[in-house]
């Protein structure tokens, strides 16, 4: 590192937008990219390998064969079962999230093919209220499990989420056992779940279906912890290890099967799909 020459010049770093760094600026090495440059590299920094977030639709495009994906249950929308109001009404937050992401909820499900291997997909969108799991996300995941069982194909889930959605209160907590039961039904039907854990996968989702894959594959640098580092630090006042909760730490402690850089994700998932298909 030290032998590197500092070549920082004016405009190397894009100007911060409202005090926050631009989403296309790499938080690790400061390199800045145009949208098409990032897309070309699957949202991975070509300079340092940092994995930028990927929107659900882009993720599906990255993983599946072109034109193979057919979305299901896209009409499901959350309502406001508790009449929840914090600083703003929940209904308003929902509407805003839909406008911002163009998605009806924080998960997109459907059928598709990866390197010609048919599969069911359940892909989360962090941009929709932090990828939080309320009733619709739980329902969509359960339907994805049922779809996979009915069609006799594996389910590939990609998670990126802060956990259960507080605004639906206890009903959000109930999505944990609900998705767990859905995975168990899929398993009883002889099905397969391949769980891809992207940054971040925490709390109620990590502690339910995301951890129940037959195979758990993590993206490099993804935060995978039930409780996030900030809360752990505040509660325990412990000095946290530098890689606390990260995919690499989880791998070392034996909680994930592999860490797969994004460019290798599609061929890796396809290889797994072939292995499971050939064993049937």
């Amino acid at each position, binding site marked *: 590192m030290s032998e590197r020459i500092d070549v920082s010049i004016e405009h190397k770093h894009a100007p911060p937008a409202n005090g926050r760094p631009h989403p296309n600026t790499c938080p690790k090495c400061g390199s800045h990219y145009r949208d098409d440059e990032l897309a070309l590299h699957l949202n991975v920094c070509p300079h340092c390998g940092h994995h930028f977030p990927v929107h659900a639709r882009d993720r599906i495009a990255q993983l599946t064969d072109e034109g193979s994906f057919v979305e299901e249950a896209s*009409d*499901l*929308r*959350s309502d406001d*079962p*508790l009449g*929840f*109001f*914090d*600083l703003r009404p929940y209904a308003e937050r929902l509407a805003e999230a839909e406008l911002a992401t163009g998605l009806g909820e924080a998960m997109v499900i459907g059928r598709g093919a990866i390197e010609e291997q048919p599969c069911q997909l359940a892909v989360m969108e962090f941009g929709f209220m932090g990828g939080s799991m309320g*009733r*619709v996300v739980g*329902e969509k995941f*359960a339907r994805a499990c049922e779809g996979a069982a009915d069609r006799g194909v594996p389910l590939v889930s990609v998670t990126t989420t802060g956990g*259960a*959605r*507080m*605004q*639906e*209160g*206890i*009903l*959000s*907590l109930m999505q*944990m*056992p*609900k998705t*767990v*039961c*859905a*995975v*168990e*039904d899929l398993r009883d039907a002889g099905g397969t779940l391949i769980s891809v854990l992207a940054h971040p996968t*925490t*709390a*109620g989702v*990590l*502690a*339910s279906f*995301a*951890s*129940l894959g037959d195979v758990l594959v993590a993206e490099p640098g993804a935060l*995978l*912890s*039930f*409780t996030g580092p900030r*809360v*752990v630090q505040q*509660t*325990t006042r*412990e000095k*946290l*290890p530098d890689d*606390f*909760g990260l995919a690499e*730490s*989880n791998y070392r*402690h*034996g*909680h994930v099967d592999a860490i797969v850089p994004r460019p290798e994700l599609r061929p890796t998932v396809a290889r797994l799909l072939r292995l499971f298909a050939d064993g049937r």
Partner: protein
Amino acid sequence: MAGEAELRLRSQLSRLRSLPLLRGAKLSGELERLQKQLDRVVSEPSDEEIWRSVELARHPERPYTLDYVERLLDDWFELHGDHHHGDDAALVAGLGRFRGRTVVLVGNQKGRDVKERTRRNFGMAYPEGYGKAMRAMELAEHHGFPLLSLVDIPGAYPGVTAEQHGQGGAIARAQALMARLHVPVVTCVIGEGGSGGAIATALADRVLMQENAIYTVISPEGCAAILWRDAGEARKAAAAFKPDAAHCLELGVIDAIVPEPGPGAHTDHEAAAQLLGDALQESLELLDGVPGDELRRHRRVRFRTIGAVPATR
């Protein structure tokens, strides 16, 4: 909180609701009639009442799991350790005789004094605790013993070692195991039913809640810290996400409310245990004779259909 008439109606209702699942009968007319009566009786718990539940659920004199074990189970034999790498005092498990039959019981355990509180980590289990619970569940499954679980946990433990030992996966696998059991499973939330730590041992055929218990997706303080950016707004958070027993029953999350003596379970441990014992026995009797496969199927259907998603807009 809830009046006697309301409690009676609620328990009647929940009993009727659970019947068609188990016996295939249709009672919708009766259900509707009871629901209408109930609607008249119930006035929504106020924000103050909800906060009172939060305080009572955390009351330092409230009976804990082992207080109930002592009063409800004969020949209690506590199981220790996950037989893997540790024993977690925050979650107890064991075998005992409950009103004439052998059962397996798991429960979160808080401490009474400072020393015991520390030893039991304020009732917050480590992954080793969930491991112990799973071992006890497997024992119940193998020998056909009913499983009782008492939930009283502020929330999963936010610690470095808990994460390194795989807290998320442990909570997920404990639920998955419960979804596979062929034996009757009855859960009662007896204090705080906090987030993932609570649901790890609550995937049951019948879920009960004591009158002053709370069941939450996150602690009121945690919710306030995130949404209001101020943990001091816990009262507002609690009022907004409605963690009290009456609301949980209304949302279909629990099947019945277990009454508490007088102003709360902390005032009379004997009476509280008696009432809890009666409710557990009644639930077990409802599940008696139902074949294991059917129990398991209905358990999964129960959680598949809680809080059904609204119709398409």
